[in-house]
């Protein structure tokens, strides 16, 4: 087997000590653990409650993009992930028996990471190991939250364990407990958006067939006319096969082993592969494109699938979750430590929900192309796909992997450009680009810690007193004539203020200490702008 699941022991309620927890996190999936690890980077203690008695089963959230890998690097687990993961950059689309499109999504040359596949169980294991090594978090498996009361100054949780029940007071609560999470239901907050009726049977199989890694999308294969099949390679000789069900098919019936094996054998026959495989797991999936109206309500914050659900067709679900964790950790840490007003957390909702809605709009187009929920869509897709055997129509249609990272250009934490000669790239709200720091064998992102960083190009550093504020500011000087200099469109004296989550907060051609401190106040506290 590709992973050994161990029973996690249950911590007896009598031994729990809520006084230690500055933040309680519900859910020890990848997003709950990444949030706890992000908070630990800022010295914030957490208790993580998980109803399961083991790490997640199945490949689940498999595909990580380069932004997630950057975040995982900064959480200290990127190396272990890369040691075990499978990277890929190609995709192929088939119609009936013919290939009609191929894609290449290699990352920009300055970036370290590309698309990276690793089963969720491994992600949870690596994040858990790193979190426990901090000594700042207690992860309690078999502790199920059964109710919560959210007050103005704390959240009281009712927790059930096999060894008895107890209550836990949390100054702050992060709900990372998935789409059916107790926190959301107790607070009576509903998702908004679209749920699609089309269903997919998902299979994890082990197969040593040496096919190149990449995403394979099969439209209308001969054994499933009008429907779609997705095939994705994972590490440890695993393949993930997602079969769309016909509208009149019963999901329970179609999950029976003989039906599952018949589909897999038909698919292998289509690909000309001998059906030598081991079926590991079967489940059913239905696409949801939904979001909560807010991700922060008083002392409760929602992250990952507890906050939103994204169709799987662009490999974005867990990636949005990691971005939630990275965006939230530094803000919540500042609030917990009394360094910022709780209003800073409003920017968590504003930035992350805006990014999520942009993805949902894009993936809605992809989802309707894949699932064809109307007769008109099915007809036009059939026409486009069959034309694509000889015409290049699919190149410009619905390629969710080609989208660059979201830019939070309307964030209240941004200070707008005072100089009009900057290019749009790297503008306030955008992610700082990564770059090799020539001639040193190091990358820019290796130098961006959990603090604010002022990148100064050239030798003229503004006379900023880096220790004068609540926010110790790291200053990084880089040569103008360098890869980073080109990516940041730098001139001598150009400065960029970078947030702890790697987003540009402000930039100047020549900055004064007053300008830097003012921008730092806006980005770190957000008390002087419209959120007041």
């Amino acid at each position, binding site marked *: 087997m590709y992973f050994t699941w161990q029973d996690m022991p249950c911590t007896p309620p009598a031994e729990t000590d809520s006084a230690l927890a500055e933040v309680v996190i519900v859910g020890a999936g990848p997003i709950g653990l990444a949030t706890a690890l992000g908070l630990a980077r800022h010295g914030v203690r957490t208790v993580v409650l998980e109803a399961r008695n083991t790490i997640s089963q199945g490949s689940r959230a498999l595909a990580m993009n380069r932004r997630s890998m950057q975040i995982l690097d900064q959480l200290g687990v990127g190396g272990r992930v890369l040691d075990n993961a499978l990277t890929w950059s190609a995709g192929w689309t088939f119609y009936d028996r013919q290939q009609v499109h191929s894609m290449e999504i290699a990352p920009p040359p300055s970036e370290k990471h590309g698309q990276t596949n690793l089963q969720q169980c491994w992600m949870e294991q690596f994040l858990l190991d790193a979190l426990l090594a901090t000594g700042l978090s207690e992860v309690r498996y078999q502790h199920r939250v059964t109710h919560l009361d959210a007050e103005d100054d704390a959240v009281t949780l009712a927790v059930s364990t096999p060894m008895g029940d107890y209550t836990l007071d949390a100054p702050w609560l992060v709900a990372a407990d998935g789409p059916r999470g107790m926190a959301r239901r107790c607070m009576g907050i509903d998702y908004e958006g679209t749920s699609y009726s089309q269903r997919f049977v998902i299979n994890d199989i082990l197969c040593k067939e040496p096919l190149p890694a990449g995403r394979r999308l099969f439209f209308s294969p001969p054994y499933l006319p009008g429907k779609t099949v997705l095939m994705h390679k994972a590490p440890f000789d695993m393949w993930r096969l997602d079969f769309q069900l016909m509208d009149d098919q019963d999901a329970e019936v179609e999950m029976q082993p003989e039906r599952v094996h018949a589909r897999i054998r038909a698919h292998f026959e289509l690909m000309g592969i001998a059906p030598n495989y081991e079926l590991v797991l079967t489940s059913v999936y239905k696409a949801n494109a939904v979001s909560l109206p807010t991700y922060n309500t008083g002392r409760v914050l929602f992250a990952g699938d507890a906050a939103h659900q994204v169709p799987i067709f662009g490999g974005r679900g867990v990636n949005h979750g990691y971005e939630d964790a990275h965006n939230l950790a530094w803000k919540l840490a500042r609030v917990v430590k009394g360094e910022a007003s709780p209003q800073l957390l409003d920017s968590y909702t504003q930035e992350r929900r805006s990014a999520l809605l942009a993805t949902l709009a894009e993936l809605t187009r992809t989802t309707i192309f894949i699932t064809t929920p109307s007769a008109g869509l099915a*007809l*036009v897709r*059939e*026409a*486009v796909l*069959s*034309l694509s055997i000889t*015409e290049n*129509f699919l190149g410009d249609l619905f390629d969710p992997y080609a989208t660059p990272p979201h830019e939070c250009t309307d964030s209240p934490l941004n200070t707008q450009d005072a100089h009009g000669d900057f290019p749009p790239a790297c503008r306030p709200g955008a992610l700082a680009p990564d770059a090799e720091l020539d001639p040193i064998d190091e990358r820019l992102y290796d130098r961006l810690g959990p603090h604010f960083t002022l990148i100064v190009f050239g030798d003229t550093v503004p006379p900023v007193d880096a220790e004068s504020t609540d926010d110790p500011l790291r200053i990084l000087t880089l040569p103008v004539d360098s890869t980073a200099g080109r990516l940041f469109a730098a001139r001598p004296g150009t400065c960029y203020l970078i947030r702890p989550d790697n987003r540009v907060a402000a930039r100047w051609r020549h900055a004064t200490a007053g300008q830097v401190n003012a921008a730092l106040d806006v980005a770190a506290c957000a008390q002087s702008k419209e959120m007041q």
Partner: protein
Amino acid sequence: MNTPTHDRNAAAFAESDFIDLAAAIDQVPATHRELFLTKLVILLAAGAPPGTLSERIERARKHLPA
């Protein structure tokens, strides 16, 4: 008898296109006509300026039987 007041400057539908389209439709089996016409529209729209298709859809929709 009414006298049509057509715009003489509008793009003409050539007699040869009329014949070609009708012949093509006749040659396609009835079960495939819908798909054939959809492909034909896609091919025409793929080379047209942006917005052409949506404008023509609206014009065509107005001429559907009540």
